[in-house]
């Protein structure tokens, strides 16, 4: 088990190095930020001073070495807009996102598991068809549009829920739904199909031959097996969740990391953007590590290899 975690951690570090390299390279490919940061009438001296201040002089390889050296020590440059270390800006916003993401995940778990099971057990009947249609809509609806739609209905027309910013519990409802819908829909379909596979399996037949109750057959023998493919695809969904926060937080003016990403792009705050992307990668890797450990806990065949 320890070996397994160490191996996963090592893989995470390798991935992080790759991500950092790509982020650095892409940052150099999008043109000189100085052009955007300074007003058009800026003099050549001002430009030169800015280039030096940002460390953009010298060969690219040297810049990369400097960047990596800093990154290893937790220094991802200074945000141009906030004039603070980019990492500090990221961490000041992170808690707000860490309130929203788990809320969406919980919504997904509590909606998708029962609905997925129910769809599988009532395959082809009305419940299955209705939930299937909702799932397709949920996957197909882009969340910026869903966000605007929800605001229009529940904030503008009905006036039931606030449309933006953080506050009491009511501020969480719309962003959570917006962020969680595709998770709910995706998980639900996944659980349904893996449930159907499991229900067909021989060990479920044996469980029934034992004379176990249907509750026990479904919740003990089927669900845990059905969740394995969900865990396998968890990483993919987490990527979607992180990018989902960019849109959702922007729509709801939620002061989290997602909105910070959006702002960094809009204001061409590229040190901040680099920092956010790298930290997002760290976040996704951390979640995946937790999931991998969970995976080993659920499936003994993984634990022992």
């Amino acid at each position, binding site marked *: 088990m320890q070996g397994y975690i160490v191996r996963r951690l090592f893989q995470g570090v390798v991935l992080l190095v790759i991500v950092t390299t790509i982020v650095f390279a892409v940052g150099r490919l999008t043109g000189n930020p100085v052009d955007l940061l300074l007003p058009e009438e800026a003099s050549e001296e001002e430009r030169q001073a800015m280039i030096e201040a940002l460390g953009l002089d010298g060969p690219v390889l040297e810049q990369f070495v400097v960047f990596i050296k800093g990154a290893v020590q937790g220094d991802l440059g200074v945000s141009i807009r906030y004039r603070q270390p980019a990492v500090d800006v990221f961490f000041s916003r992170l808690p707000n996102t860490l309130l929203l993401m788990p809320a969406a995940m919980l919504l997904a778990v509590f909606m998708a598991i029962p609905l997925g099971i129910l769809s599988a057990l009532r395959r082809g009947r009305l419940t299955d068809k209705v939930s299937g249609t909702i799932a397709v809509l949920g996957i197909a609806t882009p969340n910026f549009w869903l966000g605007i739609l929800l605001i229009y209905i529940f904030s503008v027309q009905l006036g039931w829920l606030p449309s933006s910013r953080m506050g009491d519990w009511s501020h969480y409802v719309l962003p959570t739904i917006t962020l969680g819908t595709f998770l709910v829909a995706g998980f639900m379909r996944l659980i349904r199909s893996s449930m159907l596979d499991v229900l067909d399996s*021989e060990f479920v037949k*044996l469980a*029934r*031959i*034992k*004379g176990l109750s249907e509750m026990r057959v479904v919740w*003990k023998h089927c669900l845990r097996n059905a969740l394995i493919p969900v865990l396998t695809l968890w990483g993919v969904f987490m990527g979607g969740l992180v990018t989902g926060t960019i849109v959702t937080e922007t729509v709801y003016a939620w002061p989290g990391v997602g909105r910070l990403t959006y702002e960094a792009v809009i204001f061409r705050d590229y040190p901040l953007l680099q920092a956010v992307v790298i930290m997002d990668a760290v976040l996704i890797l951390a979640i995946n590590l937790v999931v991998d450990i969970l995976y080993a806990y659920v499936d*003994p*065949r993984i634990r022992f290899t």
Partner: protein
Amino acid sequence: MNGDIALEVRDLHTHFFLRRGVVKAVDGVSFSLHRGEVLGLVGESGCGKSVTALSLLRLLPNEAARTVQGQVLLDGEDLLVKSKRQMRQIRGRKISMILQDPQTSLNPLFTIGNQLSEVISKIGAERGGGVMQQAIEVLRKVKLSAPEQRVRQYPHELSGGMKQRVVGAIAMNRGPRVLIADEPTTALDVTIQLQYLNLLKELQENTDMAILFITHDFGVVARMCDRVAVMYAGRIVETGPVREVFNNPSHPYTQALIASVPKLKRPEARLHTIEGQPPVLTDLPKGCRFEARCPHAEARCRAAYPDSFTVGAEHAANCWRLDPA
């Protein structure tokens, strides 16, 4: 009512209602199983052996499958009219089953001990020093080596033969009246097969448990069974004591089956094969179902399904050629 009969199946019909038609997988199967008896149910793949077995337990694979007619009398009580709840009480306790493939019969995510614990009663556990202690005892009965370790292991840590012993232990622990064994040794190595058959036989001899042994292996029938029923296209075409049927096969299908078993005495001869295919189960002929492949087919074989004719003590077959009239 005959007190000696553990299970009696009368005119069982299980059909699959599909879009392309009604598949009559089991179409009028009747047989009885005496206490302590081993009845072999033989026939080729797709003839309805497994569907028959699942019909008895009322565990048909999907909603398209329904038992539309018949009676399944276990100790005189019809299982087909029991409620779902009653059926759960009967499964595992009075009638149980060993599945074909031990590799997939156990849940990969739970320990052997955990899966055994589901068939150990609370009272049994209290008397036997706890559930795990009781599980170890159960494994000892099926002669699994190092049972103390096995209960803590997961299915993937055991070999196929060991797993099948666990499945056997699960199926038989509550001392069912009837055990259905659906090709329990097909997936095992040949050397392990014999051990497993001997184990089953041994465990059965200490009880009056009846076994319905589904197989397509006549060697296994000869070793295990007292009587044999030959199934073809959803119906039983011949039944009788094993020795009787082997020495005097009366239905042309049985004759052909026995002729296609390789014989050690004549290794040079080509194996006998049965020409043609069994009939499509959605479109069954009115007459004898073997007629199209039968070397002795006559006009009346096409006209009507043959009655059952007695050919010896407890030995009967459905073939017009046996008609004394």
